[in-house]
């Protein structure tokens, strides 16, 4: 696929194009890492896109209009994100509500609160924020990565470690595999499930922070539909939606697949709006069929 892109479009195969995949999808990547845990545990979190938007607006509002130092504001935003996720987790576990519905209401809530804070978009010109936003970390050969991309890579690494080598991570897999069994094995099922949503909320808030750096603005309509992209990335990355099976590294691959599709589309420069959509669908189909083929072979 990538090869085809290289043949078809000039400049497609330059290393920076690939690094840009990371730069432009850093926030998606971070959200998807949190989402991976939720899906592994057999749940789903639809609120992430809205939490990203809320985080950008709150951060922008605090920094631009209330004069907070960005770092303090970032700490608050991250804490709020985790708290919001934990709250949804408690509702889901304590009152046995369906995750889909709770997080859908959470999505309305977060976007609604974002709109309440500020209807229009807020530009950020705080020197700290701008300097971080423009910071480019050289990775050799004249190519660079943004801070957000580095955070995303760290998030993937941390997520992979968390999933593979900690008690919490393994409990998440166990819950997704067979919740009753996990309980009978004496695993802290409820606590872990709540932590999963808290983690997802935290990741969304972190993605919101990265997004704020990326856009240098806070806006209640940012990251619309991001939840679906994140879920798609996770599932394309090989995680089973019913839980219990999948890898964080796969999620990174899923994000990159979506990114490549987007890049292919934007490199084309011929497609009309509707053909763009059809092409995205077709590329998704091709990737999924390839994945299916690969799986069957294994």
């Amino acid at each position, binding site marked *: 696929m990538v090869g085809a892109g290289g043949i078809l479009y000039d400049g497609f195969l330059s290393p920076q194009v690939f690094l840009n995949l990371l730069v432009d999808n850093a926030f998606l990547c971070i959200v998807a890492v949190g989402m991976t845990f939720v899906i592994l545990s057999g749940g789903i979190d639809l609120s992430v896109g809205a939490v990203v938007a809320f985080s950008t607006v709150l951060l922008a509002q605090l920094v631009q209009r209330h004069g907070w130092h960005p770092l303090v504001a970032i700490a608050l935003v991250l804490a709020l994100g985790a708290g919001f996720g934990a709250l949804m987790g408690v509702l889901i576990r304590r009152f046995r509500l369906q995750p889909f519905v709770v997080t859908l209401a959470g999505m309305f809530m977060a976007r609604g609160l974002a709109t309440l804070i500020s209807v229009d978009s807020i530009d950020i010109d705080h020197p700290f924020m701008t300097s971080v936003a423009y910071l480019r970390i050289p990775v050799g050969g004249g190519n660079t990565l943004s801070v957000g991309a580095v955070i995303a890579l760290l998030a993937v690494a941390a997520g992979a470690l968390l999933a593979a080598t900690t008690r919490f991570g393994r409990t998440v897999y166990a819950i997704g595999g067979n919740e009753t069994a996990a309980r009978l094995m004496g695993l802290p099922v409820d606590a872990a499930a709540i932590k999963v949503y808290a983690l997802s909320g935290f990741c969304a808030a972190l993605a919101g922070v990265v997004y704020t750096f990326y856009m240098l603005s806070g806006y209640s309509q940012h990251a619309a539909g991001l939840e679906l992209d994140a879920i798609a990335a996770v599932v394309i990355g090989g995680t089973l939606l019913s839980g219990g099976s999948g890898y964080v590294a796969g999620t990174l691959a899923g994000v990159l697949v979506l990114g490549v599709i987007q890049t292919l589309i*934007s490199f084309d420069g011929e497609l009309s*709006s509707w053909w763009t959509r059809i092409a995205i669908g077709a590329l998704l189909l091709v990737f999924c069929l390839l994945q299916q083929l690969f799986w069957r072979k294994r």
Partner: protein
Amino acid sequence: DRQADRITVGFSQVGAESEWRTANTASVRAALEAPGFNLKFSDAQQKQENQIKALRSFIAQRVDVIAFSPVVESGWETVLREAKAARIPVVLTDRAVKVSDDSLYATFIGSDFVEEGRKAARWLLQDSEGKPGPMRVVELQGTVGSAPAIDRMKGFHEIIDADPRFRIVRSQSGDFTRAKGKEVMEAFLKAEDGKIDVLFAHNDDMAIGAIQAIEEAGLKPGQDIRIVSIDGVRGAFEAMKAGKLNATVECNPLFGPRLAELVRDVHAGKPVPKRVVVEEGVFVASQAAAELPKRKY
């Protein structure tokens, strides 16, 4: 060869969320696919992220000029700096952006949403001359948080709030669509028990939906309730011709040729005005019959 003489333009469109946008896309494409240009078109599916990616890819492909209709006003600083660093001039279309440094873009061509709101209000004042108050106004807003919704509301209120005869009794978002416009208007009519004098809709589509709701409630749109909206799409002219819509403020999407000129000038390094406002008028019901055949969208 000839390929080299051409100006390569990367144009990033918001999406295809409305007829207005489709007309706009068609106009721009027609103008920039003409000889002398080499158009790279990209559709952002209403997402700013996608648009930023598109701009990045234009930069990576080293186009000569970038033109785009921003999805939102803010958040362009970074990518515009990259464009500037790559010495690619940027032309904004349709909407302006907020950036700290004006030199990040060469020029802006498009409409002034606030002014459109003002025009709608001015028409209403004019049409209400001599009519006694109080007049109960309802407003169908566009998508919450979108620039046209915010600005059109601002402009409209600026003028209307100064006249004590008018009272905006209800204001709700109709998401710029016919179906939502109709649904919200239905609820308005019932909640106000039909006592509504004026409807201001942020776009024609919502007005067209609302007209149906008014008819279904047994009232006469255009007479019992006066209606003014913005955009000037063909459907609005049909409604005006039928006497169901009183006025529409034009928001002209057909600035493709003008854009092509600007792009050529910018590429040639000629000085261009920082802001080019597209010619737009206000059309009322009496002009509709004559104007309708001329409408292109």
